[in-house]
């Protein structure tokens, strides 16, 4: 089983994140980068499938040089090798362009199964898995809370608001996962050491038969027109309990649709 996991380095949600004023893209240099949390679950799932069935796990990321840290993390967890799609021409690519680039890279790598986190914590479009499947012409099984491989088929429990759907497709396929699926392992000390010796192939736009004029901020079919900082948080509501406190608190929660 040849599994490719797409991972993305995102700014730490605990650190301050800003868009740059010049080109309205995320200032990735300023924030601490780490692996998108859901991608840890994707890596874990790939490792578990490999451990059960044999095969190889390749990590694929598109991002600046700094994204090598995230590759290292996935390799430390136990992935076998990595492909890093890195090219200045890719800077500012939107979801459509990113999916085009990743699809080309995936064609070049070859795969039986592609696993992704169902969304990233920075852009949160949540559309990449679908776009990849479409471009690659393979089935998409999204929001998986459980994955089973059975010969040439993949079955997932697709998480929904009311429970889950059982969805089945034939391999090769693209699967996106949610937190419920597993508990990602920590890299082990040995894994950290071993990761340094694992192969990381760097690919540029020219290596994946992609036209540089089709990617990047200037050519993006979607555009960030304007952005504004989130308004500072307004003062909270203080309920003074004079016998009515409970009712007032309940009313407040109800007004915000929490209850």
């Amino acid at each position, binding site marked *: 089983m040849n599994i490719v996991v797409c991972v993305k380095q995102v700014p730490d949600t605990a650190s301050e994140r800003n868009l740059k004023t010049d080109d309205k893209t995320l200032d990735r240099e300023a924030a601490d980068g780490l692996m998108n949390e859901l991608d840890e679950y994707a890596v874990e799932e790939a490792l578990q499938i490999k451990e059960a069935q044999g095969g190889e796990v390749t990590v694929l990321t598109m991002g600046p040089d700094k994204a090598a840290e995230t590759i290292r993390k996935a390799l430390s967890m136990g992935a076998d090798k990595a492909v890093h799609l890195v090219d200045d021409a890719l800077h500012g690519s939107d979801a459509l362009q990113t999916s085009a680039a990743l699809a080309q890279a995936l064609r070049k790598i070859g795969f039986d199964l592609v696993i992704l986190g169902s969304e990233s914590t920075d852009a949160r479009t949540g559309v990449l898995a679908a776009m990849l499947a479409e471009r690659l012409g393979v089935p998409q099984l999204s929001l998986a809370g459980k994955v089973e491989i059975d010969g040439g088929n993949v079955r997932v429990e697709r998480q929904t608001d009311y429970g889950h759907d059982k969805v089945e497709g034939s391999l090769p396929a693209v699967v996106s996962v949610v937190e419920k699926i597993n508990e990602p*392992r*920590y*890299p*082990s*000390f*040995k*894994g*950290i*050491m071993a990761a340094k010796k694992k192969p990381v192939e760097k690919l540029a736009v020219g290596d994946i038969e992609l036209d540089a004029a089709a990617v990047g901020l200037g050519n993006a079919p979607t555009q960030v027109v304007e952005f504004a900082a989130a308004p500072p948080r307004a003062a909270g509501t203080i309920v003074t309990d004079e016998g009515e406190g409970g009712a007032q608190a309940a009313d407040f929660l109800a007004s915000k649709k929490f209850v």
Partner: protein
Amino acid sequence: MSGVERSLPSDEARELIELVRELIAREIAPRVAADEEAHAFPRDVFTKLGRAGLLSLPFAEEYGGGGQPYEVYLQVLEELSGAWLTVGLGVSVHTLASFPVAAYGSEAQRKRLLPDMLGGETLGAYCLSEPESGSDAAALRTAAVRDGDAYRITGTKAWITHAGVADFYALMARTAEHKSRGISCFHVPAGTPGLAAAAPEHKMGMHASPTAQLSLDGLRLPEDLRVGEEGQGFPIAMAALDAGRLGIAACSVGVAQAALDAAVDYAKERRQFGRPIAEFQGLSFLLADAATQIAAARALYLEAARRKDAGRPYGPEAAMAKLFASDVAMRVTTDAVQVFGGYGYVADFPVERYMREAKVLQIVEGTNQIQRLVIGRHLTTR
């Protein structure tokens, strides 16, 4: 919290410390207070540490160990102990319990037992003390009597860390009359008929770490679970303790550092007489003394560790490090409570826990009187 800036010998050691800090932040720190209050032993934390390779650090790579020098292993222990002594001391005890098989076991024993010991699948306990023999450890009476190709073991061990929760017990028992040369070392798997742990002691601190008596009632142990030769048990136990004392020194520095960090943070926040209490010289001198003592204690255990790593004798240096560092931990944690004033005396802040934890470090693995005895004997019998 960025943590202590450490002198580390390699990039891999730096990455190891980062991994340890991540595990502490995510898996340990959030649950310490609750588990200590509930007296709940965090067995799963040891499994996680094991899977991450942190129970194997000082052991040889060929048996699944991390192949790290003591200089590095001890700093990991220091970090863990500052977060939670139940875990840090637990790791030290596990190392102590794994040492006999790793250093004196037969090839077959190592192959069979070490992978699980070092990988976190099995947790160890070290059984030397008895109700009637503490400092005078060689006076132990638990008896192992030959019975065909096995031993029958009968007696009571006392103060056993991990009693009842361990998967294996490194046990010292008497196989002949001679006081120190009549002791042998055994590997006793949990669940062996005749082995029973009493209810845990009600301790001053480390509530989440069970310490209990262990009774052996005619327990039958196959001969191939004896570790080393008959009569070699006491030297094995003492060699384990030499290294173990370095572990206790590192645990002590961890607890002391945690107390100082808490005290410094608090002193900068707490205001009296219109300014932060940290601005009063009377208080900042106390913090300065604590920081100095901690730095000295750390340097002392690291120097002893480097001697060990270089293959030089280090027994007296280990005793000095254990003695000094645990006394520092006691003093610093007591002073940290002082810095917090009344708030230091209640469980809402961790400093009272550090103070209760520090006390045990002056007692275990040879009381500080016994450390002086070791150092004094070294000076006067050379």
